[in-house]
């Protein structure tokens, strides 16, 4: 059989395909369809991996002995080379001249360490501006017109796949940068909140009530700011599904009660009438009680904010077709038809509202939707339009009533009260570069019988330790120069088995931060502003140990 007439290497036309046999065309079509089916299978891979997959795929269709795909996107060129179907390393010294030559060679053949091979190439991008795919084979007659079709198809798919992989990689980088920024922002915002909260509690304890109204105003605004900070920290993790739910069977009534407690100050401030129609028993869900309470609290907060003072809000729960259906209904300003489809998106707010004093960041409903979805449920909003109130409906799978329900749960509302128990005999070292925070915490603990010393950096803490010999150390993690983890290690070394207990008090609250603290030897990890109830329990553990220690 004579060889088909030579064909232009870059652009085979219809006339050349006319020389192919029906079997060749059928095989070519089948292989082409296979190549086209590949992109969904490599969508999660990075740019280099996409190029490798395409070359490997070509090896399944063509008699390839050498392949090189070079992408030249300006600052970040990429090149993938496969020699003899991967049996020879692309770093093999004897092949470097071939590799260097192939990316610019327009001749029909190329010299290689295994002899002269027949060469074909296809451009990536318009007029090859994004690179080139080069394939060489020892087979006589290579490349046929059908083989060139496959080569060009592979080049096209590689180019498209590479573009997608790069966009996804850049998006992931941007998302990670945003997460890191939000975590840092949350940490920085939590730091000043801690001493403010402690000072307010001290004012309450000491005050004669003359500035009670002003104290309450500051308390509410600080609480509101604290919730905004929590939402900021939550939004990135929750909306990306990077949150571990601690699920257990629980009655929906308990969760609703908790949520109402969280929102009570706002409801009182706006003088709303709240009706609750939630059966105490019989509506059990498998849920993270803290996170589900957060969902309901977000819905109640929205209802409170977007209803004129003195309005009506109702919470109702019922069982229907294997689901718990929970409704939060308000008599407020309603949701316009154009806003309704987007109401659960991030940062969406009704910007026409004149009442913006408690505007928030537009995160609450997005967080609520993500959390409900993570629980395997659905959330929807309904409204008859502006001025006609809103209904938010959450549906969750109901659990069998035979399952034991956790009586109450560990998520009691954070109580903003000072430690109640006497802790006489405790020697507490507090280390925080936030001077006000450290001083306020020391004052609060002193009022309950602790002996306290304060330091504002690692070196200062080491000096105080040597002289004061504390039995417990409360350490901020984000200290200058020597961070809390390093300080913990050095204090432990100085203590030399003396039983020093280390507690982290920090604005960093992610699971990774808790794990790192545990690994560094901290026995507890408390998030600012400190829950004094939790701190109290930690100190009480210490007091018990001190009481039983032999004199």
């Amino acid at each position, binding site marked *: 059989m004579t060889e088909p007439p030579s064909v232009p290497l870059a652009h085979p036309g219809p006339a050349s395909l006319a020389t192919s046999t029906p079997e060749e065309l059928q095989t070519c079509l089948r292989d082409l369809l296979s190549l086209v089916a590949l992109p*969904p299978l490599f969508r999660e891979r990075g740019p280099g991996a996409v190029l490798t997959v395409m070359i*490997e795929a070509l090896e399944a269709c063509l008699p390839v002995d050498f392949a090189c795909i070079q992408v030249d996107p300006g600052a970040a060129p990429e090149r993938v080379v496969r020699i003899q179907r991967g049996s020879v390393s692309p770093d093999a010294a004897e092949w470097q001249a071939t590799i260097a030559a192939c990316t610019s060679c327009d001749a029909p053949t190329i010299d290689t360490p295994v002899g002269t091979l027949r060469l074909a190439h296809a451009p990536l991008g318009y007029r090859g501006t994004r690179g080139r795919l080069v394939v060489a084979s020892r087979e006589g007659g290579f490349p046929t017109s059908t083989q060139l079709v496959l080569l060009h198809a592979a080049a096209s798919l590689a180019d498209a796949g590479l573009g997608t992989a790069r966009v996804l990689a850049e998006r992931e980088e941007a998302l990670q940068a945003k997460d890191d920024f939000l975590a840092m922002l949350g940490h920085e915002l939590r730091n000043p909140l801690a001493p403010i909260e402690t000072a307010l509690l001290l004012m309450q304890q000491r005050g004669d009530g003359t500035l009670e109204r002003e104290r309450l105003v500051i308390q509410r605004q600080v609480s509101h700011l604290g919730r905004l900070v929590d939402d900021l920290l939550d939004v990135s993790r929750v909306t990306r599904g990077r949150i571990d739910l601690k699920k257990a069977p629980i009655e929906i009534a308990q969760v609703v009660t908790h949520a109402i407690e969280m929102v009570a100050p706002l409801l009182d401030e706006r003088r709303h009438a709240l009706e609750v129609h939630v059966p105490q028993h019989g509506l059990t869900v498998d849920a993270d009680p803290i996170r589900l309470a957060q969902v309901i609290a977000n819905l109640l907060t929205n209802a409170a904010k977007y209803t004129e003072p003195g309005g009506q809000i109702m919470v109702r729960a019922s069982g229907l077709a294997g689901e718990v259906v929970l409704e939060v209904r308000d008599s407020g300003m309603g949701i316009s038809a154009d806003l309704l489809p987007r109401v659960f998106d991030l940062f969406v707010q009704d910007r026409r509202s004149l009442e913006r004093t408690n505007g928030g960041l537009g995160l609450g409903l997005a967080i609520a939707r993500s959390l409900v979805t993570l629980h395997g449920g659905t959330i929807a909003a309904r409204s008859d339009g502006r001025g006609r109130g809103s209904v938010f409906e959450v549906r969750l799978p109901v659990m069998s009533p035979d399952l034991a329900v956790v009586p109450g749960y560990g998520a009691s509302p954070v109580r903003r009260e000072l430690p109640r128990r006497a802790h006489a005999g405790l020697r507490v070292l507090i280390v925080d570069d936030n001077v006000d925070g450290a001083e306020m915490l020391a004052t609060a603990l002193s009022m309950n019988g602790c002996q306290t010393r304060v330091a504002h950096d690692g070196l200062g803490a080491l000096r105080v330790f040597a002289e004061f010999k504390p039995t417990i150390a409360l350490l901020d993690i984000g200290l200058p120069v020597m961070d809390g983890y390093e300080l913990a290690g050095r204090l432990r070394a100085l203590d030399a088995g003396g039983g020093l207990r280390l507690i982290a008090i920090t604005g960093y609250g992610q699971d990774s931060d808790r794990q790192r603290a545990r690994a560094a030897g901290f026995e507890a990890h408390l998030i600012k502003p400190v829950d004094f109830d939790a701190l109290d329990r930690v100190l009480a553990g210490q007091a018990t140990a001190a009481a039983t220690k032999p004199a």
Partner: protein
Amino acid sequence: MQDPTLAGKTLDRYFHVCAFFNSRDEEYGTLGQFYKEGLDWGEKALHIVNPALMDDHRTRLATAGIDVPHCEHEGQLQVLSWEDANLTSGAFDQDVMLRTVDDVLAVALEQSFTRSRIMGNMAWAFEGRPGSDQLIEYEVRVNEVLTRTRQPAICVYDTAKLTGTMMMDLLRAHPLTLVNGVLQENPFFTPPDQMLQQMRARRSAPAMASA
């Protein structure tokens, strides 16, 4: 007898499916309904899985609404490890495996099961096990058994582990593919005899010597 359904489509012409998944959640989210349907209809199910993940497999079946202990007790559901099915001698032997599939289907018929649904997790092929190189040829040859017996079988692959060559060969070897949760007839399915011929030609091509 009703035709089985998978990912919302009916299996009535072809029965050998290559299923690609990016995660176990995606895998069980797509296949759970297929498993449950068969068991609810009184059919037999044979699942060949990673021995390290057998408990997790049973847990995920339960999440899909299957009464796993009952079905296993009744002999309706059989969960086997790779070692007990594909790698009985420590290596994969395609001839042994083809006979095993045939035997399993025959025994199920004798036990009066109207249909058997087979699922094989193929991750063992990427662990360097002896005989793994026979996988594609086995996939090609098992088409004959499944076409003759009209019993559905799903081969489950983790896309992250696949090379481009393997993707192409798997696509050519299966008349049905399940990608991104969508089941479709495969227009690039290569008839088994042609595929075997190509593979043997590929294997027998002489290696190139250095010039």
